[in-house]
């Protein structure tokens, strides 16, 4: 009895180890039966095979359900709405085909919002790129002491830490007629009287672009800094030994090395910037004189102010289509980079 009690753990542990090995083996080799004597049993091998085949789908199911419920279904509903008239406000909307799109493009307001979106996006993304590269190069420079680089790194990344609401409030205060920017410019005799930057027709678009650049450049900077740190010193040194100037080294060594990151970041930034809403809504609301009206603010007004949910859906579908094109370009660029 005593002997059995003391000896019992050994075969049980051994048995568990073998079971574990059997599981691993069958999973690796696709073998439904670790025991050759029962390999041919039809009921067991059938259910085991089915079970193993279903496992990946079961693991993917939660994510699939969530993405389907929160993204695919709403997008399909919005696309559906764009093809009907008086959706949400009427219990029985009528199918109108592409009439909402035709109305959008013939109204004048939407094409203007598209043009403003294009200006806002191109100016922001290009500036993010140039400033991001410049600051990343500076932070990667060996000319600065490391402690100073650390200080600059913290300072430069600060805008990225603020939420859109905080950024909007900060810039509203700074660009207020009584704000610090007007004060400084007046002290430097660059302007004779206060300028309400957000509400002056000639400066409104530039103001929201500058604000958006400030809020978004750190993401470029940090990503490019990581890319710069990954460039082997030997490449740069070799270029220098070959007599390349700093500019030539930058364009012929650094930029090609950063190219995959630059393309990816630009694509992502185009997607984000073209959908920017909060910063614009909280500062200009699309004004003055609709000069900063972009697709996102146009869509919001159509839905929540004019209750034209069909028009709003059509505008959203245009933005989705544009985003899809950029997303495909982005994925192709990624695939090329991976290859």
């Amino acid at each position, binding site marked *: 009895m005593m002997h059995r009690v003391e000896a019992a753990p050994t075969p049980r542990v051994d*048995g568990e180890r073998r079971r574990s090995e059997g599981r691993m083996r069958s999973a690796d080799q696709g073998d439904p039966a670790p025991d050759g004597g*029962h390999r041919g049993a039809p009921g067991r091998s059938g259910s085991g095979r089915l079970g193993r085949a279903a496992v990946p789908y079961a693991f993917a199911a939660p994510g699939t359900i969530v993405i389907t419920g929160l993204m695919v279904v709403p997008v399909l509903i919005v696309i559906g709405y764009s093809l009907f008239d008086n959706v949400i406000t009427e219990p029985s909307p009528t199918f109108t085909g592409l009439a909402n799109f035709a109305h959008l493009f013939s109204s004048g307001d939407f094409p203007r919002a598209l043009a403003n979106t294009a200006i806002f996006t191109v100016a922001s993304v290009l500036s993010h790129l140039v400033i991001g590269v410049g600051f990343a190069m500076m932070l990667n420079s060996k000319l600065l002491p490391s402690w100073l680089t650390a200080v600059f790194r913290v300072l430069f990344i600060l805008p990225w830490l603020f939420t859109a609401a905080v950024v909007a409030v900060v810039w509203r205060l700074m660009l207020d007629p009584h704000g610090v920017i007007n004060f400084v410019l007046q002290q430097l005799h660059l302007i004779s009287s206060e300028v309400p930057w957000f509400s002056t027709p000639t400066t409104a678009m530039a103001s929201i672009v500058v604000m958006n650049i400030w809020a978004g450049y750190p993401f470029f900077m940090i990503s490019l800094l990581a890319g710069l740190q990954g460039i082997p010193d030997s490449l740069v040194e070799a270029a220098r030994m070959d007599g390349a100037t700093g500019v030539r080294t930058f364009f012929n060594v650094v930029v090609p090395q950063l190219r995959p990151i630059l393309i990816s970041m630009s694509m992502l930034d185009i997607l984000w910037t073209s959908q920017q809403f909060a910063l614009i809504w909280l500062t200009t*609301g699309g004004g*003055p004189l609709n000069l900063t009206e972009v697709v996102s603010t146009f869509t919001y007004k159509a839905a929540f102010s004019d209750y034209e949910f069909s028009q709003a859906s059509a505008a959203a579908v245009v933005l989705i289509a544009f985003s899809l094109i950029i997303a495909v370009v982005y994925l192709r660029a990624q695939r090329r980079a991976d290859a």
Partner: protein
Amino acid sequence: MSSDAPFTDTAMRHPGSVGWRPLRKALATVAWLLAVVLVAACSGTSGSAGGKVTLEFAQWWAPEMPKGSLQKIVDSFEKQNPNIRIKLISQPFSTLQQQTTSNAATGTLSDIVGLDGAWVNDLHKLNALASLTDLMKDAGYSGDDLASQVKVDGVTSMIPVVNFTYPLFTNDAILKKAGVAHPPKTRTEFVAAAKKISKLNGVKGWVLPLGTTNPNGAQNDVMSWLWASGGQMLKDGKPNLVNNPGVTDTVDFVKSVYDADAVSKGAFTLQETDKMNQFTNGQVGMMIDSLAHITTIEQSNPKLKFHVSALPTTDGFTQKSGLDYASWGIGVSEKSKHKAEAWKFIQYLMNTKINSRLATLANGFPGNSAAAPDLSKASAEYKQAFAIYRAGRPENEFVGLPKSNQLMRDFDEEFQKTLSGKQTVQAMLQNTQNSWGTAFK
């Protein structure tokens, strides 16, 4: 062979254990997730447990009242009605406005909801509001004491709980410094005062928020001048802006103040909060604002001395002035499962005693015609405002109009063009009337 036996035996007895165990776990996870999602989706805004009903009350009132005072009123209601619990959801006005629209569209409006008159028509069209006419009838409440009810298609959708007028606020120190002896009573006096104040360093006479994020400047800062002088922008319930001397004079008058550089800069993107901030900080001498902001102004700048007075009228106007007003309105969600309980709370807020207390706390005027605000401890500004209220008649033609906010936005956008010199006043009124026409079809 003997050591292999347990493994073989186990595998034989539970043939699917190798493949099914992780699958079962994964399926269980999926089932839990689905259960959580379904429960979350099915649960409404209200709930009931153990016979106790919990109702959500979304409003912007609490942030504009002395801290905790609305909760105290709710507590006293709950004490009288132990089976009903009111959960306050407090947000700033503009946030709640957007939230209410989106919740109405998706059928997730709170059981009881704070309403502005400008939202009612649209919410009614979205079938988001319950008929208060029916709820009053079911509760045997006559409604005789209600000062007003906002009806759409003959059905009461909102009851104004507290009314706020929009008088003229004047900064005592700035007026004195500019040599303005008293708050202006006529438009001529107003222009003169605004010009005098604007000569002071760093101060402008008036603030005119025409921002389109929340476009209520059209109502409170432009059309209020029209109503104060007995004018109307509607005729038989339809827009009447063109060839309407009252409207033309009003727009011309506001434009003249703007053209005189007596308005603070940045008008095209300013909001109501900016207006209040500029007045509180002493950047402007005069503003038209809600009495509801008195508490906020006093808390922000306790040293500020200011007066409230009736909006100046056209020279020689002697009739009763129309007072621009806004309401803390209340309604019930059509989707609420506890409409009777929701009405019980509304009825409580509208009883003479509570309504009076609410109005006094909010620096407004009671929605119950039999209730009177407690003036014994009231501030001087509140007493002034009550005198103005009694001398005038509440007027706001935007209340109950379809797409009311969009109408104001259309007006603001066209007015911005006019102030920029891109079109005449007549063209502006014609364009605005054309835009408004689509909402009234």
